């Protein structure tokens, strides 16, 4: 059964089509009813994804799955499931009821795009997947288009993604011009470090850097993250970024492995810039969405430490970190989303005294932020620890030192939020409310993930066995 | 130089060879291009003048009038007189208009129609260029004309022009789909996009007969959609006289107005030629299967006669539409395209593909 090789994508396409058909025949006053079936369907697909199945090449090498890409897809699917759970409360709002199934369809199609991108065996499929993963997101960022900021976020996202795709494609066209093929397996042999190919790589890297919002190309991030609906922001900062980091890592380790000496310098510089500038700008943010935006920029810088290792350890740590990052950032965003949906408050000052009124939410937020900062009991510590180890293994001690310094800075501003929730007093704290079941389930999965990954070490070993022989 | 009224291949080839013999290749090409350009220009003038005359006569006939009857016998020199008058008229420049775009617009419209006519075969061996993608090329270049219409409407700085341009833009973008898809139905049947091959394939029967019902449906849809694409009544919302004075070319005068006017008629001619070529066999005589005697007689009628006869028939159909149907509203127009023509067309292509797959066509 050759079709089973592509099971992840095919199942997702199938539920997308089902949702589309249901949407057509659902009467206008019952649109809400689609939420639960959609979640269940997606949950089933998520669980089916974990069943081991065949791997291999399809379509003449345009589509390749390895156990590693399957693992990446599963990680992303779990992340998307959490995002879906967190967005139910928001979707049930009066103004969004008309567009519930469209939300699911658009988000699922971006996931399809990411999975094709991860499984791509040539630059054409890679680019198509990348576009499929970005274009629907612009519509989603402008989902609440009657709010000016949301519309602005959509426009900014589509412009930056168009620009970055243009730069990326220019690089790819140069590679095609020198190599004469788009298949990864053939491109590897053709790359010999000629100046034109190096220029091509720079363009390619710049295009990808836009998508990951690495520092010189990060200027769109804060505005888009602030304006977009909060669930889309968390999706952008976690799932999109995670997928882009994964495919970039794969491409750097495989296709561009021959020019590693050259790209390591690029990654080295951007890693330092990204960490430092992301952290410094995060300190002065008052809005939690912007705050998390800059913190996620800084996190991307840390991930580059793992990439620069260019070893099995590097690959494993990158995936491990992305996994941890998904849980911790989705946890933080989940809390912000719940509070924002119920009270409309998004400023750090608004969180003063939150522990007294909503202790569970505060604790969740605290765990997530600890994980982002890298404080020992939770998983984030190990994520950062392994990244530093991967870089140190290559003898890049200065880089590790800068990263550690940055961790300390980040600790400061993450703890600012924790301080606001637990220590600050406020005359008018956010009042007690009971969040909906879906959000609580989503947050619970995040917390469970953080704790289990932090305590249960075999997960690292588990990832490690897939990454063998990738680079 | 063998001149053969049934096959122009050797005639055109001998001209080509002679030119390359006398001149270096670069100049030979230039001279050749100039000759072809001149031939088309003259053709444009003659056909344009004739079509305007025909339109007025047909209109008069439909409305039970006499039509032009003063200048020359049956008024045949009327349009020439009108043309001379247009040439002599003052070119009015409008204050606060975008002069550059205002002046470019008529040229874009006429160049688009000029590019399209290059691919049309008039008789065996008598076409300017025979692309392997002929039909697609024609669809591609005809879609350029709308840019001129939009620019004309906007740069005139006149609200009627703007509304007219907007309507025409929406209309052409929509109906282009149907034109393309109905031609695609025949491409599925023919298996080629080259005009010469498309005509050659119809030697045993025109496609409208060969392709059963789907071909007929495609023909009807093509007629409707292409009437809309040329901005002719009942789809002439862009220049609806009663509401928008003259729509997008309200502010144009003299020769520039004549360009729009000519382009409209030439577009009608081009569209009719495509319909004649793709559905009715182009210059190919009317043949019936194995009636050899009948076919032999038909072959005596020269291809040019067949071609112009079929084209004239379709032009007459389009004029008939214009003078009998009331003008549609913009919402009716878009509904017709998106809710009826497009779905019918898509299903029609599927049916045609199925018929070709099963080999049910003749």
């Amino acid at each position, binding site marked *: 059964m050759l079709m089973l090789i592509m099971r992840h994508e095919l199942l997702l*396409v199938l539920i*997308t089509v089902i949702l*589309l058909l249901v949407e057509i025949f659902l009467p206008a006053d019952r649109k809400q009813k689609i939420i639960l079936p959609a979640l269940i369907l997606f949950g089933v697909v998520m669980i089916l994804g974990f069943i081991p199945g065949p791997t291999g090449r399809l*379509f*003449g090498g*345009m*589509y390749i799955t390895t156990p590693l890409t399957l693992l990446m897809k599963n990680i992303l699917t779990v992340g998307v499931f959490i995002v879906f759970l967190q967005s139910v409360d928001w979707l049930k709002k*009066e103004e969004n009821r*008309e*567009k519930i199934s*469209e939300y699911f*369809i*658009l988000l699922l*199609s971006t996931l*399809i*795009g990411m999975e*094709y991108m991860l499984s791509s065996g040539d630059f*054409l*499929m890679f680019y*198509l*997947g990348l576009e*499929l993963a970005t*274009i629907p997101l612009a*519509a*989603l960022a402008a989902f609440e*288009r*009657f709010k000016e900021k949301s519309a602005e976020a*959509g426009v900014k996202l589509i412009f930056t993604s168009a620009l970055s795709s243009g730069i990326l494609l220019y690089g790819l066209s140069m590679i095609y*011009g*020198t190599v004469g093929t788009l298949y990864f397996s053939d491109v590897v042999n053709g790359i010999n470090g000629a*100046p*034109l190919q190096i*220029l091509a790589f720079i363009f390619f890297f710049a295009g990808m850097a836009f998508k990951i919002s690495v520092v010189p190309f990060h200027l769109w991030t804060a505005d888009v993250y602030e304006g977009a609906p909060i669930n889309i922001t968390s999706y952008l900062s976690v799932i999109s970024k995670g997928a882009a980091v994964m495919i970039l890592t794969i491409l750097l380790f495989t296709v561009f492995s021959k020019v590693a000496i050259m790209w390591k310098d690029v990654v080295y510089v951007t890693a330092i810039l990204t960490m430092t500038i992301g952290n410094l700008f995060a300190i002065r943010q008052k809005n939690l969405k912007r705050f998390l935006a800059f913190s996620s920029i800084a996190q991307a810088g840390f991930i580059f430490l793992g990439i620069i290792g260019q070893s099995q350890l590097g690959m494993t740590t990158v995936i491990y970190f992305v996994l941890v990052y998904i849980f911790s950032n989705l946890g933080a965003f989940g809390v912000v989303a719940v509070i924002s949906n119920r009270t409309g408050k998004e400023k750090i000052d608004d969180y003063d005294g939150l522990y007294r009124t909503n202790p569970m939410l505060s604790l969740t937020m605290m765990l997530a932020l600890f994980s982002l900062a890298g404080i020992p009991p939770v998983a984030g510590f190990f994520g950062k620890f392994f990244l530093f180890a991967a870089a140190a293994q290559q003898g890049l001690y200065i880089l590790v030192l800068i990263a550690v310094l940055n961790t300390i800075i980040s600790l400061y501003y993450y703890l600012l939020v924790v301080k606001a929730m637990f220590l600050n007093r406020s005359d008018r704290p956010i009042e007690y409310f009971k969040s909906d079941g879906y959000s609580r389930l989503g947050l619970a999965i995040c917390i469970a993930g953080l704790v289990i990954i932090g305590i249960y070490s075999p997960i690292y070993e588990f990832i490690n066995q897939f990454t063998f022989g990738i680079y | 130089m063998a001149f053969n009224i049934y096959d122009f291949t050797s005639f055109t080839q001998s001209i080509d060879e002679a030119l390359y013999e006398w001149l270096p*290749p*670069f100049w030979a*090409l230039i001279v050749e291009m100039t000759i072809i350009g001149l031939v088309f220009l003259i053709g444009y003038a003659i056909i344009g003048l004739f079509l305007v005359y025909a339109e007025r006569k047909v209109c008069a006939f439909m409305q039970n009038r006499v039509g032009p009857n003063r200048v020359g016998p049956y008024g045949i020199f009327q349009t020439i007189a009108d043309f001379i008058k247009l040439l002599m008229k003052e070119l009015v420049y409008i204050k*606060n*208009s*975008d002069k550059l*775009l205002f002046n*470019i617009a008529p040229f874009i419209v006429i160049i688009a129609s000029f590019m399209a006519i290059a691919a049309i075969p008039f008789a065996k061996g008598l076409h300017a260029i025979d692309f392997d993608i002929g039909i*697609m090329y024609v*669809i*591609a270049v005809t*879609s*350029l004309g*709308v*840019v001129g219409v*939009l*620019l004309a409407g*906007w*740069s005139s*700085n006149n609200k009627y022009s*703007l509304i007219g*341009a*907007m309507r025409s*833009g929406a209309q*052409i*973008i929509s109906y*282009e789909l149907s034109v393309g898809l109905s031609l695609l139905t025949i491409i599925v049947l023919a298996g080629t996009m080259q005009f010469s091959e498309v005509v050659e394939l119809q030697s045993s029967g025109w496609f409208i007969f060969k392709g059963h019902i789907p071909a007929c449906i495609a023909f009807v849809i093509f007629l409707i959609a292409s009437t809309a694409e040329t901005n002719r009544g009942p789809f002439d919302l862009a220049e609806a006289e009663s509401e928008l004075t003259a729509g997008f070319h309200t502010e144009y005068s003299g020769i520039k107005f004549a360009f729009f006017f000519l382009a409209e008629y030439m577009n009608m001619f081009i569209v009719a030629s495509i319909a004649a070529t793709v559905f009715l066999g182009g210059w190919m005589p009317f043949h019936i299967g194995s009636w050899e005697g009948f076919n032999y007689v038909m072959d005596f009628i020269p291809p040019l006669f067949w071609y112009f006869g079929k084209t004239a028939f379709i032009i007459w159909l389009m004029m008939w539409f214009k003078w009998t149907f009331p003008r549609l509203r913009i919402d009716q127009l878009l509904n017709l395209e998106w809710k009826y023509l497009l779905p019918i067309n898509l299903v029609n292509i599927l049916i045609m593909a199925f018929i070709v797959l099963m080999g049910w066509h003749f």
Partner: protein
Amino acid sequence: MTSNQFMFLLFSAVIVIFSILTVTSRRILRAATFLLFVLVSTAGLYFLLKYNYLAAIQLTLYAGGIVVLIIFSILLTSHISEKLPTAGLLKKWPAALVALVGAALCIVVILQYNFPGSVVDTEVVNVRDIGNSLISYGEKGYALPFEVISVLLLAALIGAIVLAKKRKD
């Protein structure tokens, strides 16, 4: 000079000149019109390479589709008297400098690369071959991208619907 070289120079000159005019024009509709000329000339280059299919696609999609959409949206949003604000000198010169240096870098690097010269005459690519490779799924087949693009188009359609949906009163 052969006629092919002449046409190549002509098209390239049109592309370069009108590209510059596109980005420097202060009237947005003029910029769109200049863009049209750039795109049509690009199609001309494809015709020159005898890649007729791509040229026709370029004309249909870019010149007939995208530029018309751009012009249409300009018609709906801007008035004829509007002019784009000029950027200050502090913005203009650094931008021009960066663009020039970038272009120079790209040109130098591309010229430096030793492309293997092709001695094969350009051939017309048969449309039938293009069609066959679009739906074949073996080596050099493009069935998968073809299908994935349809998912992309579907998503884009739904995205457009989301943006265009009326607010419920």
